[in-house]
């Protein structure tokens, strides 16, 4: 009886790529682990281990770091082979500011684009204007101001940066602590102090006001960079992350299948030390890693992005 009205209502309002759809998708990843993969076979292992999504890459950050040179968007055939292999969402990275790489990735129907400091930046002043895209974007941030600038440009998900490809979690700890601590500080301020806060954070006043009122980011906040063990993942979750990216940590370890599944368990039950302890057993070698303090400043990826 109401069929005709239904059709008219539906067709006139069907809406793709809205902020709600972009941010809502990130909400569905909360509590989960997203894994870097460089082959369809690794993507299969990630899906079988309980990853909520995979990041399709040509090289994991540890190899980008070791091999040097310019790191760009991954080979399109590789990304497509990974999309074909798994049914969980597939993300892919574009260089900071490289809006054409992003346009290309959107034609491949990737589920999320990571505008990532792990690749060589294409623009040392501007990030991509992310609003015109239907595909949602995730961006890295080391502090609240950077996170809000990215959200202002249209990012629908934020990840604290950490120092990718090191297996050293200390930068990830610093960045997630910085962001959550700055949010708490804003929430404690009186209204008339927020104008100066916006100036200091170099972020739009409206977003600063929203954070002060709600006490949280308007988008999901994941953490990344140097996560190598289930304990690392659980610690970052306890520090307030909504979920975890694991880059080199899984497939640069001795037993990727076991480690991937263990990091998933520890992320789910991050607040239960007994579960995390059992997840830590029998994993073989963790990735060897590099101490961030041994990295000369120009080689630190987390300093890319502005």
């Amino acid at each position, binding site marked *: 009886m*109401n069929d005709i*009205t*239904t*059709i008219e*209502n*539906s*067709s006139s*309002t*069907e*809406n*793709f*790529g*809205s902020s*709600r*759809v972009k941010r*809502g*998708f990130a*909400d*569905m*990843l*909360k*509590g*989960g682990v997203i894994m870097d993969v460089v082959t369809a076979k690794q993507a299969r292992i990630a*899906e*079988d281990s*309980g*990853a*909520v*999504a995979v990041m399709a890459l040509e090289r994991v950050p540890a190899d980008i770091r070791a091999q040097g040179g310019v790191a760009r968007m991954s080979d399109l055939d590789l990304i497509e082979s990974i*999309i074909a292999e*798994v*049914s*969980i*969402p597939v993300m892919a990275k574009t260089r900071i500011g490289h809006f054409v790489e992003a346009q290309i990735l*959107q034609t491949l*129907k*990737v*589920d*999320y684009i990571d505008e990532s400091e792990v690749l060589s930046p294409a623009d040392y002043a501007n990030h991509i204007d992310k609003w015109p895209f*239907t*595909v*949602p974007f995730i961006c890295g941030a080391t502090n609240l101001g950077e996170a809000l600038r990215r959200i202002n440009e249209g990012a629908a998900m934020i990840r604290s940066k950490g120092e990718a490809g090191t297996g050293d979690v200390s930068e990830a700890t610093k960045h997630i602590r910085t962001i959550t601590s700055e949010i708490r500080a804003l929430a404690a301020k009186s209204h008339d102090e927020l104008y100066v806060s916006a100036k200091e954070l170099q972020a739009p006043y409206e977003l600063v006001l929203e954070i002060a009122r709600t006490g949280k980011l308007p988008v999901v906040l994941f953490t990344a960079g140097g996560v190598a063990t289930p304990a690392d993942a659980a610690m970052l979750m306890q520090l307030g992350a909504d979920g975890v990216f694991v880059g080199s940590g899984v497939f640069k370890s001795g037993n990727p299948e076991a480690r991937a599944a263990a990091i*998933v*368990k520890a992320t*789910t*039950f991050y607040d239960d030390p007994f579960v995390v302890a059992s997840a830590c057993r029998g994993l073989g070698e963790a990735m060897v890693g590099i101490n961030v303090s041994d990295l000369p400043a120009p080689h630190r990826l987390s300093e890319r992005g502005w």
Partner: protein
Amino acid sequence: MLKSLGADARAVRRPEELALVGGLVIPGGESSVIDKLSRIFGLAEPLKSAIRAGLPVYGTCAGLIMLADRVLDAIAGQQSLGGLDISVRRNAFGSQLDSFETNLDIPAVGVTPMHAVFIRAPVVEQIGAGVTPLATLADGRVVAVEQGNLLGTAFHPEMTGDTRFHQYFLDRVRSMA
């Protein structure tokens, strides 16, 4: 959302927590991961027993998949809890580019159309005799169903602040108490 409707809402991740609730919402997320973790951590069997015993359960998106007796396009080895005599196709619309919002007429919860958000959403492809479809897309595909104490939607009412579906579910839970 449940709290705003006066419910005492709490997270259920363990079998002992399941025993404390009078109704359960299985939220969105990645259904293959929810399935895997619910089995690893021993929640799947107690959930199946509770559903058989009549526990009111509302599944949104991945939760709808978990409640379906039959899942199409599942990953290898993926299982569901079952309870709803339906076939659900996982990720039926395509990639995130195909995620959308739209208005749906859902007479069961009120005359005003409901704004619904579909995110890599499933659809119900086949329903058994005991299942009532509650909402369809313009093309006729079923996106909300009810059977006994089980309720499922392919979309996410919690993302728009429209409380009617959750109220509908809570009314059921309270009537059981």
